């Protein structure tokens, strides 16, 4: 996303709710911490900066553990707490294993919100703000199946880290959507949210089974990128594909007709709204007990940050789709989910 678009998004959000920084705590120092290095979370950095500026926070910094390891994330979080960070938006390194660290942070007066992934209940996290990953994979599969005209409808599913709590939800959702439409998931290739294994396994699969598959659904960033390149390389537009996220490679493959569409997530909105809420919680607001939270397999306090299917006709204006989603959520967020004096 360009800086211009980010500014437009931030200004749009501010004007939409008329929020000033009057109620913001000037000493709020928020950390946005993903589970490890991953391009999906890059939008959190700008979102934190924009939110810090817009709401007058002391800081809202994006801090990345060096590896996807729970122990590294926990050490980083404890270190940040000692450095004076007093609010945390966290993608859980492990939905259960991270809970004790969250409890430790909250007991030290630093509110925690789950971002992009949820902590397993019960936890001290205020709520979880993320993509309804199961729903996103379900909608994406349905969109893919709409494009398949044959009777067999055989699809392959390429997805992410097995330790990611969302992966099993995605596998189940794709299977459910396929069964509803009379399609078959002929293969699931998982644990390929890193470039080398994704390249090796996806290409090996397509080299051997390109004729045995009619469609591909991807539900993680790197597999989507690698599969987009792979279908472009074999040049077989017979195989339909629905990707996920907004990597440049994916968007170009959609424009060129090798990929049919992509399921957008909303990482910028998660970072921006998450930071805003953490500041509010520090300023004395509380989460409404009767707020209309959704439920998922991990928590009863889930808020969907939005998802949208973008095909070739809207690929040039995908930022508008993300902005609309964020704007809608932000406009009503405080009134819906928070009680502020």
């Amino acid at each position, binding site marked *: 996303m360009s800086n211009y678009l980010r500014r437009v998004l931030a200004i749009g959000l501010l004007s939409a709710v008329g929020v000033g920084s009057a109620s913001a705590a000037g000493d709020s120092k928020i950390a946005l911490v*993903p589970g490890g*290095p*991953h*391009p999906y*979370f*890059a939008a959190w*950095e700008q979102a934190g900066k924009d939110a810090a500026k817009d709401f007058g926070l002391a800081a809202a910094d*994006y801090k*990345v553990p*060096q*590896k996807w390891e729970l122990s590294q994330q926990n050490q980083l979080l404890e270190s940040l707490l000692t450095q004076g960070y007093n609010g945390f938006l966290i993608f859980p390194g492990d939905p259960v294993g991270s809970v004790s660290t969250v409890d430790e942070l909250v007991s030290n007066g630093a509110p925690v919100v789950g971002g992009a992934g949820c902590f397993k209940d019960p936890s001290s996290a205020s709520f979880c703000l993320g993509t309804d990953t199961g729903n996103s994979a379900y909608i994406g599969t349905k969109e893919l199946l709409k494009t398949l005209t044959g009777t067999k409808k055989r699809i392959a599913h390429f997805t992410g880290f*097995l330790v990611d709590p969302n992966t099993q939800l995605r596998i189940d959702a794709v299977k459910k959507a396929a069964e509803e439409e009379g399609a078959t998931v*002929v*293969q*699931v*290739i*998982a*644990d390929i949210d*890193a*470039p*080398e*294994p994704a*390249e*090796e*396994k996806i*290409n*090996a*699969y397509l*080299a*051997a*089974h390109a004729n045995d598959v009619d469609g591909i659904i991807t539900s993680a960033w*790197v597999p989507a*990128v*690698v599969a987009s*390149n792979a279908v472009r*390389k*074999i040049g077989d537009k017979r195989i339909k594909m629905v990707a996920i996220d907004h*990597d*440049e*490679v994916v968007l170009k493959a959609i424009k060129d007709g090798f990929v049919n569409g992509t399921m957008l997530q909303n990482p910028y909105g998660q970072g921006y709204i998450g930071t805003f809420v953490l500041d509010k919680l520090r300023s004395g607001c509380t989460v409404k007990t009767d707020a209309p939270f959704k439920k998922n397999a991990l928590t009863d306090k889930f808020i969907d940050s939005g998802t949208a299917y973008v095909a070739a006709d809207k690929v040039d204006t995908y930022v508008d789709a993300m902005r609309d989603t964020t704007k809608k959520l932000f406009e009503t967020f405080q009134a819906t989910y928070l009680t502020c004096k």
Partner: protein
Amino acid sequence: MNGSLANAMRSDWFGPLLVTIIAVVIVGSFNPSFLSPLNIQVLLLAIAVNGLIAFSQMLIIAIGQMNLSVGAIGGLCAIVFAGMMDVWHVPAPLAALSALSIGVICGIINGVLIARTGISAFVITLATLSVYKGINLGITHAQPFYNIAESVKSVGQGAIFGVVPWLMLPTMAVGLVLWFMLNRQPIGRFILAVGGNQHAAELSGISIENTVVTAHALSGFLAALAGLLLVARLQMGQPTIGDDWLILSFAAPVIGGAILAGGHVSVPATLLGVVIVAIITQALVLFDIDPFLVQVVLGAMILAAVGANRFRESRLSRKLKRL
């Protein structure tokens, strides 16, 4: 004829070659598309990059040490290569040269720290792994570099006769040079001598420090070259390049009969070790193994491959003793 066969059977590469042939026959008979030109090309692409990663670790095993920072060096050099083309529009050859130089410098830093401080290579490279990976993340903020030169992309996608990827050429060249160096050149003999018995090597007048630093510099160079090849193959500079290299970097030389204590490695056997791991990885995909069991099966099959080679070696050595 019998003498040649007996000689071949005694060599390090015979066992891995046998395992490779058996694996190809089994996988090919169950899934004929395994031997299709496209699949062979995919297999060779994996071997091209993984071969360099294995050679990078093999050189350090040869001196009786280990290099945990192979992946971090490769990843750093990959993003330097891609980043220079993307951000500064540096021509690809110059960017490649800079990235390879950084690989050598990283290796020299490892070697000097190990040789001068006397701290174990495990500890030093564990620390530098963190440093190099941290620099990578500091530069990229976990964002890929996309604007790779077209020439690099075409090399990464191209294949000779539609089957042999261009990326195989540097790996084959490196393999030949390493074989020649380890078997015919003084520096190669020094490396093996230091790994075999450091004290004896020192008494023979070999400079331990120079040898250790040279081995690490070469290891850094090869890790950097693997990173460059991966950028060409992926057509982007991903910050996560190198994160998965560690297990493979040890598995292939060990399958190839390398002694972890040092002093004995084999270039062709290590390359065959890479081939075996690549075939196993592909077979798991082709046979639709449950994704939650892939790691278990992969580990078990690598153990089986190492075990088969060790079994052959022990039988051979018993036979030789009887003679």
